[in-house]
């Protein structure tokens, strides 16, 4: 999968590394700010109170 993406990236090595880093950053940001905040309340690993 990563090999395939890498081959699709245009430009020389430096440009490719830069584009790859931006892509990784984008994915991480979407996970951190959108996906994780949505998922976290649904699994709630850190219950604090007593009772039902």
């Amino acid at each position, binding site marked *: *999968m*990563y090999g395939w993406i890498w081959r699709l990236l245009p430009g020389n090595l430096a440009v490719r590394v830069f584009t790859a880093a931006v892509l990784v950053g984008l994915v*991480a940001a979407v*996970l*951190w700010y959108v996906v*994780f905040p949505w*998922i*976290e*309340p649904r699994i*709630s*690993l*850190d*219950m*604090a*109170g*007593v*009772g*039902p």
Partner: protein
Amino acid sequence: MGDLSITAGLVILLFCAYLLWGTGSYTAEQQVLLQRQLIEGGKAGRGHGPGPVRLGGAVALLSIPRLGDDYRYAVVEGVDQDRLRMGPGHYPGTAMPGKIGNFVLSGHRTTYAAPFGRIDELQRGDRIVVDAREARYTYRVTGRRVVDPTELGVIAPVPDQPGKTPTRATITLSTCHPRYSAAQRLVVFGALDQSQDRLKRPE
């Protein structure tokens, strides 16, 4: 397949990092709002709902010197998921700060800034200071115990003696135990030691 497994591993790692550090920024934002509410005199915090403080309003300022001089959290009214993300929550219906009965607070252990992350370090006799509108109440830690999540007796007006009428003011802090788990609850008990009225501002 190998690629996918590695990706899944990285995503899970990132999620753990989010739980530990990312969730705290939300709590920090909410704490600023709650503490401002307290300073402004609880105008927004009072008046609606069944209790003296509406759900989601700021109840008092909690400080625990053992956990650091800058350990300070505004206590929010309510202990449902949404409130506990804002800071330590007060069980609606349990006593208000300094009043006869049990002032029961619950807080996260590892996520959302982990307000009760280190309450296992509290020793008997340690001060728990609660700054309410009208007075500063100082409780002293009397004990600590690990209980099952179903053990409701710890939040009774007289801890462990449900149904009994309280004669003194106590405090109960609860959080999850062991750390990173929701299997049990760590509970710290305290009793009111001192109350100091605030000087009235001339009106």
